[in-house]
């Protein structure tokens, strides 16, 4: 009963001093807005990586040509040690492997049709690609073993390529020029949308790997192999078996580094977690800096307000307020201000995140974690910033305070 009346009294006091309340709140609003936005972007990035892993498949792994330890595409020197024979040997000798899809690629190839042209990524793939990637033709057909054998000049195009070169017309049976070679379109790929990395997965042209190697790029190596396992639980063991097999086939002496890289979903997940961890440290820093600043502002205004309100505090104590009643009121005022600021900040942060997403393609995740973090942080700031001023107010002697 009495608590309820003190709470009401504190709210009225905040309502009477709107400018003071606003000034106290603004720091927390900014801080929590920043925290909420950063959390949204951070979680968005993590989610994107996770969805990429899921899309890739938990029973799959990638073998890339070229060594190195970090994630990402092999860069720098061309590594020509990975061959289609490696892929065939893996499938033949390791029983845990259900399928292997070797591929090579060239980004930025010009594809033209009747004077219209655009650039797309050219992929050389085998007929197994469709099964291993679970990504076949939506219309027409995919590349067949016969295409590979004949080094046929046939291609399967992505939806973006189809729309930009043919519009609504049926592309199947038409001839497109890729580089200097003419290809017959035999199919249109199932649309995949934007890749987690931001690239358009439908802006691709797929041709038989043999055709790619002999007729287009004139190389005898491949860029990588996607390996599909019978069972995802064999992942680590199989990765090690593949490694041993490839080292043996590439005649690598002990101590010599791998000239290929095996990337498993576990590795991708771990990398994502590492990135998220770094992000979280950054987040904590942003949160800490902005909220410490906001907290100082609040503590300061509260202290000023305590000396400004000496007469009020003296009066309240003279007419029977206990020290703890005064302390409760001041902490409540402080927490109310920060919590309200926090809630406003959460709303602003989420709105900002959504605007950011629609304006820039940066993935964001509007989550309850962000909101909870905002509520917890802002309450804490209010409590911590309010304690000292509240104590000071509670310790005032009524006659001293009444004198003003």
């Amino acid at each position, binding site marked *: 009963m009495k608590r309820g009346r003190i709470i009401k009294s504190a709210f009225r006091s905040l309502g009477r001093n709107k400018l003071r309340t606003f000034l106290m709140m603004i720091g927390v609003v900014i801080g929590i807005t920043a925290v909420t936005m950063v959390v949204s972007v951070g979680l968005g990035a993590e989610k994107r990586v996770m969805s990429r892993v899921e899309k890739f498949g938990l029973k799959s792994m990638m073998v890339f040509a070229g060594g190195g330890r970090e994630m990402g595409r092999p860069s720098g020197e061309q590594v020509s040690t990975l061959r289609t024979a490696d892929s065939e040997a893996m499938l033949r000798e390791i029983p845990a492997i259900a399928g292997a899809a070797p591929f090579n690629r060239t980004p930025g190839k010009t594809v033209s049709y009747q004077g219209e042209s655009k650039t797309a990524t050219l992929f050389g793939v085998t007929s197994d690609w469709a099964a291993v990637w679970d990504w076949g033709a939506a219309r027409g057909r995919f590349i067949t073993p016969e295409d590979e054998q004949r080094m046929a000049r046939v291609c399967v195009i992505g939806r973006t390529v189809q729309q930009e070169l043919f519009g609504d017309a049926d592309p199947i049976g038409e001839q497109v020029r890729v580089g200097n070679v003419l290809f017959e379109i035999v199919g249109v790929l199932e649309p995949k949308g934007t890749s987690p990395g931001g690239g358009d997965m439908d802006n691709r042209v797929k041709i038989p790997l043999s055709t790619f190697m002999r007729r287009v790029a004139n190389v005898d190596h491949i860029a990588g192999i996607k390996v599909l396992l019978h069972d995802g639980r064999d992942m680590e063991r199989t990765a090690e078996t593949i490694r041993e097999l490839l080292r043996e086939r590439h005649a690598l002496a002990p101590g010599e580094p791998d000239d290929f890289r095996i990337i498993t979903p576990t590795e991708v997940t771990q990398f994502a977690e590492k990135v998220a961890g770094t992000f979280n440290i950054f987040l904590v820093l942003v949160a800490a800096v902005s909220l410490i600043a906001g907290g100082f502002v609040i503590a300061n205004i509260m202290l000023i307000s305590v000396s400004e309100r000496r007469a009020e505090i003296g009066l309240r104590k003279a007419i029977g307020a206990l*020290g703890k009643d005064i302390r409760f009121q001041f902490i409540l005022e402080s927490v109310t201000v920060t919590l309200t600021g926090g809630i406003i900040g959460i709303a602003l942060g989420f709105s900002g995140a959504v605007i950011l997403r629609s304006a820039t393609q940066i993935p964001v995740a509007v989550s309850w974690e962000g909101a909870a973090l905002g509520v917890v942080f802002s309450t804490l700031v209010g409590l911590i910033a309010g304690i000292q001023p509240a104590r000071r107010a509670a310790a005032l002697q009524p006659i001293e305070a009444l004198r003003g």
Partner: protein
Amino acid sequence: MKPIVRVENVSKVYQKDHEVPIHALREVSMEIAEGEFVAIMGASGSGKSTLMNVMGCLDRPTQGKVLLDGDPVSTFDDERLARIRNKKIGFVFQTFNLMPRTSAMENVELPLVYSDRADIGGLAEAALKQVGLADRARHYPGELSGGQQQRVAIARALVNDPEIVLADEPTGNLDTRSSYEIMALFQDLHGQGRTLVVVTHEPDIADYATRIVKITDGRIESDLENQNVRRARDELERLDDSVEVMR
């Protein structure tokens, strides 16, 4: 009549570091009974406010004993004193001490905020009615005259139905007419059986009380029944007459 306040050999010494101690009260003893209207008179620095603070449980004596309604309040801790102040004492200050930007009603309700009562409905309205300001309940102090503000403060002092009302220079910041109005209100309250103590340095104001205690240098100089109590209402009427004449 039962005694409300009993002060026994009370001394109060203010001692700041390395300064000469100030003896605000020197072995003062007095008793205020239920229904009395006492004026405590004295020059500034005589110790009259200190006496009021000690009686009002705002301050503890350095020596001696204070009994309020039978309780030895001079031995109580801060928390118990706060509860006693809330329940048994109504304060009226020279500067009104109303909360700004807060309606008359909310100002009067303030002591109820800290009361242990479960039901406080209607008490503030009744107190405002008692001081004749029921129609000003929603006004802010800034919208009221000085006299009206002091009446709001008196309503606040009355809202918890205290044993005693202590007023420290209640007319010190008021014009003559408002002063008479306040004293008339005090006389009405006294007529209804309230126990009142008014601290003042103006003999003119003390004349409305039924008992006048004079304090000099922290000692009671005289403590006499007022043989010739003036009626504040008479003064108000006289003021109204003179206004008529001037017209």
